[in-house]
């Protein structure tokens, strides 16, 4: 197992380097640049800007300089659009926010989704099942860009219970609506996957054996059914977790959280090369890491899997 993890980490490094080079080239191929705006800049001013940010160098040299600064100094450079801040600062400000509401949403989605799925599978084809399936379909069809403004309308304007947006780490009320809006559709997917996987497991031989031995039903479910039923759920959760903690542009826009989901999309639209690279690398590294964790979890859950 240890050797497996080492091997995977060794592959991760060239993967990330490729990702950096590839994104860098693609980004520079996109038309326009960080300094093209409604009014064209005087040529001399533009030249000074480009010199300052090293955009005059040949592309290979720019990539090389960037790699050196990222790998050796862990410095992602200054933002092109927010000149007062470095990319490291922007990520340090925005990522904890997304990590918080994304992490909470993940927990909410997993706990509620799995419970709903298990309950629906146990009382298969009863009203409990129909209700659970109904809830999860409802949650799935209501996209978060519809739900977000609705939540603000209800909880901020009508009931005045919650602030309509913004962020503070000291006040949990700011995270309530982002968590609801972000977690519901994931919760629905998790519930459906859990339900069908659970149904399959409950019909398998080892469960019949356990029941035949006279094991109480709750022990059958918890000790023998739940663990194998979680396998498809876990392979779904790996990428979901990364996409949740690296933010959602919809949540960031509607609730003005200052998270990095919006920063990522904005940086692409504004051609803020430095921020875009920084977030790409962050998301890439996290994706590689969590795919690895999922694989390790697999081996732990399913004794048949050995690396």
């Amino acid at each position, binding site marked *: 197992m240890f050797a497996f993890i080492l091997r995977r980490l060794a592959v991760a490094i060239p993967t990330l380097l490729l990702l950096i080079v590839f994104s860098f080239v693609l980004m520079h191929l996109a038309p326009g640049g960080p300094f093209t705006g409604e009014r*064209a800049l005087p040529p001399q001013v533009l030249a*000074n*800007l480009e010199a300052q940010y090293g955009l005059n160098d040949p592309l290979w040299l720019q990539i090389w300089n960037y790699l050196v600064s990222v790998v050796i100094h862990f410095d992602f450079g200054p933002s092109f659009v927010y*000149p007062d801040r470095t990319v490291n600062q922007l990520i340090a400000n*925005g990522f904890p926010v997304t990590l918080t509401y994304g992490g909470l949403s993940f927990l909410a989605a997993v706990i509620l989704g799995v419970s709903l799925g298990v309950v629906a599978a146990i009382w298969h084809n009863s009203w409990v099942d129909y209700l659970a399936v109904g809830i999860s379909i409802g949650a799935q069809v209501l996209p978060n860009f519809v739900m977000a*403004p609705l939540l*603000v309308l209800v909880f901020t304007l009508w009931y005045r219970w919650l602030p309509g947006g913004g962020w503070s780490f000291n006040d949990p009320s700011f995270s309530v609506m982002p968590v609801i809006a972000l977690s519901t559709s994931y919760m629905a997917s998790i519930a459906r996957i859990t339900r069908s996987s659970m149904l399959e497991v409950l019909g398998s031989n080892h469960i019949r054996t356990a029941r035949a031995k006279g094991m109480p039903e709750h022990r059958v479910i918890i000790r023998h059914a739940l663990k194998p039923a979680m396998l498809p759920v876990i392979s779904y959760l790996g990428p979901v977790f990364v996409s949740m903690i690296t933010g959602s542009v919809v949540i960031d826009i509607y609730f*003005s959280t200052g998270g990095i989901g*919006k920063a990522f999309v904005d940086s692409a639209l504004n051609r803020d090369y430095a921020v875009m690279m920084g977030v790409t690398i962050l998301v890439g590294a996290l994706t590689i890491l969590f795919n690895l964790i999922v694989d390790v979890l697999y081996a732990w859950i399913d004794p048949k899997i050995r690396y």
Partner: protein
Amino acid sequence: MTKLFATTALLTALAMPAFAVQPAEGETLAENQTYTYWLLDAIKSLDPALNTDVEGSDALRSLFEGLMTESATGEMIPGMAESHEVSDDGLTYTFTLREATWSNGDPVTADDFVFAWQRVVTPETASEYAWYIELMNIDNATAIIAGEMTPDQLGVAALDDRTLQVTLSAPTPYFLNTLSHATTYPVPRAVVEEHGQAWTQPANIVGNGAYTLASHNLGVEIVFQKNPAYWDAENVVMETVRGVTVNDTNVALTRYQAGELDRVQIPAGQFPRLSEQFPDQAVSVPQGCSYAYVLNLGETGPEALKDQRVREAMALSLNREVIVDQVLQGGQRAAYSWTHWAIDGFAAPEGGMQDMPMDQRLERARELLAEAGYGPDNPVRLQLQYNTDESHRLLAIAAQQFWRPLGIQVELNNVEWAVHTDRLQSGNFEVARYAWCADYNEASTFLDWFRTDGYNSGKWSNAEYDQLLADARTAEDTAPLYQRAEEILAEEVPAVFVYHYAKVDMINPAIKGLPRENLLNTWYAKDLYRVAE
């Protein structure tokens, strides 16, 4: 640009002491003097040398003060400069600074201005607004930006701590009026040198304005607190000013209605409903921007557009009244001139197509197209390019519908913002949506755009037009020159003008002192106060 500034008003204003708005009789101040305003997005920079956008300028006007500032009604009044003298040749200005301190207690000195202005033109600063120092005609600015001279050769010197001398390269009648712009604000040399680019962060920033920066959570909230060290602090009523970012205008409106914000922009199309429901809150005032479809007449442009008759037919048949009354619905006005109708001293030429009934205009358009060899059976085919935005899309669809029956087939081409501007600047378009906003309240801020060496993305060129604008810089009476320039634009149609902007906001009636007749919408937090409801 000579007529730019009402000099008499300026001189009288200079003689008066600075004043802030005071509550009128019968008004009771609210206990809680907080003003919360809406920001569409994060503020990009709080460095006067690096700021480029309106939201940044709004914030900088609270944190800093230039040599001059503006009264609540938009007149120029002394800021950091107590008085000034101009040499006979108009090239040397000597300012005497008032006794004022930075928010850290250090005195504001002439050297802080020298440092700030030199910093803007230094190539390493990479200021996008370096051209502003050129616009001010400060001696050697252009050469320094080009790297041919060193920043210390800029025509600005501190004779002593409170005397600042500025040397211009040419007499510049509007010079004093450039001095309230954020790019010209002083910056504290010691603080900038100590912290480098991080000097604008809340823990480091030091200003000389009416407010200090209490906190700045990028993209969430920026909070200003009244600065007790400000020289005119006794006349500042508003204690706290908060700028809250809400990226979605509909959510912003909901939060306004929930009492979280005192001012928001009204989302497109909602003004009629809101002004009926909340007549004391929904406000539409002219905003100094014009919207147009620019036609590419350059080498890269399509053949059909080089025919003036085709361009005229496009202008005639675009039903702007439907666009402003049915689509935009927020007090915008149909545009038949490039200059915004509310610009100071500007009167649009009369007798143009705006006075013709629509059926006559359509008939004339058909004739022109037929003469040019086009019609419904042999249509002109064009690409209309616009950047991603719901209202641009609606307008483009409307234009498409107005032009199609005549035989002008436009294909809509939606691209993202960066691609749109890149294609405009490289001439890679046929018809493109464009808007221009006034930098100052005078017609040349618009008309300069179409000069042969102006921004002029469509590459239209007319010698008479260029001459008119050159003459206007020194003319006693510029109005007839600008009218003639607009007539030329109406005749030759280098662009189809669509509408003049309005700023459509919900404003909490308890907030007083926000200027409503200021076309550029500059406001100073120090002029605001909140009355008890």
